[in-house]
């Protein structure tokens, strides 16, 4: 559903898409929270696609499912080193996704690979304060630990 709306928004370009129903507005506001769309200046319910949205669309349309484990790890290390500093050793997973968006790795594959690295003890994932604090882009841990929202190297 999200991908279809992003496609329409990309097709409509600068003119934007007018959200007519409550359901459409809710969905597009959710996409806006993720940074994929924005409200057109001077309007209330007209949405335009952002560059992040275009990247996400390209990722979804042409997913790169053949990325190897080592290549993925190298990309992750590079993204981590861009985001982390000694005072903030934990980085947000949505930020890592954003940096790696050029690689067109589908979210499900990204989540799986990141969880595998955590379970192997290469990285450490940490949860958000609560599920509501992990607005988007986190990884559901499928257990009692909540939604993983931060990561760091080392375990």
């Amino acid at each position, binding site marked *: 559903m999200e991908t279809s709306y992003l496609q329409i928004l990309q097709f409509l370009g600068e003119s934007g898409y007018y959200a007519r129903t409550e359901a459409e507005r809710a969905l597009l506001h959710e996409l806006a929270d993720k940074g994929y769309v924005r409200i057109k200046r001077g309007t209330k319910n007209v949405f335009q696609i952002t560059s992040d949205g275009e990247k996400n669309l390209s990722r979804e349309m042409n997913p790169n499912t053949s990325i190897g484990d080592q290549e993925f790890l190298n990309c992750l290390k590079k993204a981590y080193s861009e985001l982390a500093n000694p005072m903030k*050793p934990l980085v947000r997973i949505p930020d890592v996704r954003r940096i790696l968006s050029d690689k067109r790795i589908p979210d499900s594959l990204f989540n799986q690979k990141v969880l595998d690295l955590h379970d192997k003890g290469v990285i*450490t994932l940490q949860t958000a304060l609560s599920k509501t604090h992990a607005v988007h882009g986190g990884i559901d841990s499928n257990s009692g630990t909540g939604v993983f929202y*931060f990561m760091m190297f080392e375990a």
Partner: protein
Amino acid sequence: MTHVASLVIENPFHNFTARSDTPEFFNLNRPNKEALKQVIRFLEIIRKKKRKSVLLPIIAEAGYGKTHFYWVLRETITDAYVVYIPVPTNPNRVYSHFYFETIKAGGVPLLEYISDALTQKYQKVEHAAVDYSGMGNIVIEGFFALKDPKQSKMALKWLTGFDIDAETTNFKRTIMDDEELAFAALKVILKIIDKPIIFFVDELESLFIALGPESELQFLETLKKMHNEASNFILCLACLATLWDKILDLSSTAVQSRIEPPVVLKRFLKKDIRNYCNQMLHDFHQKFEILPPDQNTLWPLEKADIESAYAYSHGNPREAIKWLAGCIEERKGPLLENLKKNQNHLTLTGKTIKALADKKKDFSTGILQKNHGAFISLSSSKKRLLVTVPPLEIMDKAFHDSYENSLKSIITTEKYDEIVLIGCFPEYEKDEDLIITQFSVEELDTKFQEYLEQF
């Protein structure tokens, strides 16, 4: 022998939340190693007077052992005092809170130590006034008054807030009424005390969550003042990792620049879960009179439980411990049931053997129930016989191993001419020097009785 009827099997994993008032004596080195190393390094720096104070954040996710780390510090570090400081509920009363918690930890001996050290160094309060100006002067007077028999009770009330007897109840003032005075007292204590103090400020984020960013900011600014003006301490700021960046962002650059890079507590890997189980199950084995089985020190858990605890918890120590607690609970019921059956079996069989032996007047009998088996010694003037009843077959291998060890130890320390096994115990390796005869329980009244007659 463990009395099953009254046996309360305490789940060794029942406690998955550390508390400041419940000591924890175990330490898994790996997850805390880096943090401990950092604290020790900063202590060394403070001891060498290269720095006067340090603000060291300890960050970790919920359940990663921040409060447990306080106990690790308390149990490991001998050349510093460790004081637990829960975050104050009122950001306007930080110093009095720090002072009160310090006094709570050190008690009256701490005050007496400071008082002794001051009187020894300065002899008179006037001499000390030069080094402790302003509010410090008032505090010094209080400490000197503690040495004066006429004023000591009042001084103690003023310094601690506690009434010693009726004499002090009308004296309402305490040092903690005034923030500046409490801070001055804290500075005096830190200056005089023989070792640095590690203030372990737990749940740094709770002011942020409960009262909002302004309160947190105010608290951090107060800590900055303490860092600037007091000396001889480390402030360990334990904080939820996921809120650390928010707290750091809202603090002023002046505060940020004073804070050390945070140390992150590590999570559990599979080997940590295994080590933790080994430590926690030690007492459990003792309670069941089980010698740690060589093959499986994790009993009653199995290797698969460690795997599943890791898979479920993703290495979060609290979640892993919760999972293990569930595994133990599951196994407790059948274990207790088997223990009861075994105890009844041992009692009944033991009684029958004793009754048969008593029929022969020339035997002296001794009964011992140990390690889930029964050992009955029958001695005549010529020979000594050991009749032993091993645990029931339904019992876990760990119980059989424990019984076997016990049997081996008995026949090595005591001299028996012959051993009789009642029941089934196929795994026991026969000692070449001993004659081992085996009877089933059903054969007690027949073949065993005949055997005794011959004997």
